[in-house]
């Protein structure tokens, strides 16, 4: 069941759209903001509001790499693995993160604190190697900065 707050926010998104389905991504993001991810049940609830079939909405949801259809950690790390960061030492940053967190791409730490994902170019090539944690961008990364960032996440 979607919360009253979620439904209200989705209705507000709908009021800006020419057709209901156009609010699909916004609605999925609203649910994700409240719950961290989009479960099958939530997806069905959203589809009903949008007059879409769940599978139709899921074909949109699963297309986007930043709509999470599985639970994620409290903090999501998006590590840039594109060309400028690769040239500037992305691989050693990934090694450092793997070592410190004990997980590889696509995994969540056992304490539910971090999920680690690769992401295309963050548009921070002048600060390579870079990563994004939650909504903040960091770079150029070295082991000291990585420690600092990880420690600041509860």
């Amino acid at each position, binding site marked *: 069941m979607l919360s009253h707050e979620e439904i209200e926010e989705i209705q507000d998104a709908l009021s*800006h*759209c*020419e*057709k*209901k*389905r*156009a*609010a*699909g*991504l916004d609605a*999925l*993001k609203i649910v994700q903001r409240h719950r961290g991810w989009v479960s099958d049940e939530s997806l069905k609830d959203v589809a009903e509001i*949008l007059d879409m079939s769940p599978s139709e909405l899921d*074909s*949109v949801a699963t*297309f*986007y*790499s*930043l*709509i999470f259809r599985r639970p994620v950690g409290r903090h999501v790390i*998006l590590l840039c*693995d*594109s*060309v*400028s960061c*690769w*040239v*500037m030492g992305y691989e050693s940053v990934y090694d450092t993160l793997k070592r410190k967190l004990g997980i590889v791409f696509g995994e969540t730490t056992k304490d539910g604190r971090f999920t680690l994902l690769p*992401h*295309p*170019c*963050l*548009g*921070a*090539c*002048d*600060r*390579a190697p870079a990563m*994004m944690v939650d*909504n*903040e*961008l960091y770079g150029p990364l070295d082991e000291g900065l990585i420690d600092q960032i990880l420690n600041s996440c509860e």
Partner: protein
Amino acid sequence: MEKPLTQNMNPNRKPFSLDEYEQAGGYEAMRLALTSMEPAEIRTLVEKAGLRGRGGAGFSTGRKWGFVPMGPDAPKPKYLTINADEMEPATFKDRVLMEGDPHQLIEGIIITAFTIQAETAYIFIRQCYTEASRRLTKAINETYAKGYLGKNILETGFNLELHLHESAGRYICGEETALLNALEGKRPNPRSKPPFPPVVGLWGKPTITNNVETACNIPHIVKNGAEWYRSLSRVGDGGTKIYGASGKVNTPGAFELPLGTTLREIIEHHAGGMKPGTKLKAILPGGASTGLLTPDHLDVKMDFDSVQAAGSRMGTGTLVAIDEKTCIVGLVLNLVRFFARESCGWCTPCREGLPWVVKLLSAIEHGDGRPEDLEQLKHQIRFIAPGRTFCPLGPGAMDPLKSALHYFEEDFKRHIQEKKCPWT
């Protein structure tokens, strides 16, 4: 040297508010356009100025606008979408423009929408540009409050609604027709063309999609004229360009320079030259989908025609400097892997061909390559080619590979002969 696009920017403070932007001469072009110019006059001016689309394709902006049906019988409503998806690897120029001077973009949008008589505009921005989104949201709210967006702007009867659409990843959303499908709430595969969006676009109505940097140029052309705009450039096309440099240079960054500045000037002067102990081996001139160039090309001018004549594309104009200690096979593997991951899966050459190329390159990079793999790679380049796919993603992925095999085939052969990566 005039730098119209970045003149209001200062990295040490917040971007201009609406009032500050107006004090610096902002929104004068909008006033001029809406109150004293006809849409056709603005379109002709922009075409004469020689502005070519800054998203990478380099098509004449004025001519593109000319494909939109005009007049009382034209289909309604019409739409303007601004492509702020900027997910081309190595590209960060639009981020600089949106974070540095959001009102400049909004003014460009208002004039462009007026020119094609669109009453709804969208800025399609990638999710990871959180700071740009925050600054644009604030600027859009200020603009509505001032009455420059909304109903009856400057009492001219022109209405414009501007929405910020925040995406959620996936490079393909930056392809014009995939972007339109995304805005309609569909799975963002590209569309089959024709029909083309200026005639049949968002919700089946005429739609122009312009890149952020393209739109930012519009107020300056309207205010200062076509002659002035052409005089900013060193080549036949008009304007300045936001170039970028990253990779093994001393001072990576974005630089506004005359269109047609050479690769040498960008790398050696503006980006501070190569880092100590490194030597330039290759240049990726304008994003992941552009072919590599070599130090022999340092005197090539960075504009659409000159880079094309040198066998590559200017693309987004944000280069990566690659040094001799970086493995070219590894570099190309990184690039093609990106495209394979971001393929939407709609057409076969891209969906099946790119992972195959990744497999071949990965084998070569890790010492498991066979001599016949090079022939297979060349076959794939011919197979994943323009005309065989619905959009340019797949063929774009082949450009760096093709150029790498052209200039650095020896590097591939060494991997195969030595059964390891000689660069690690």
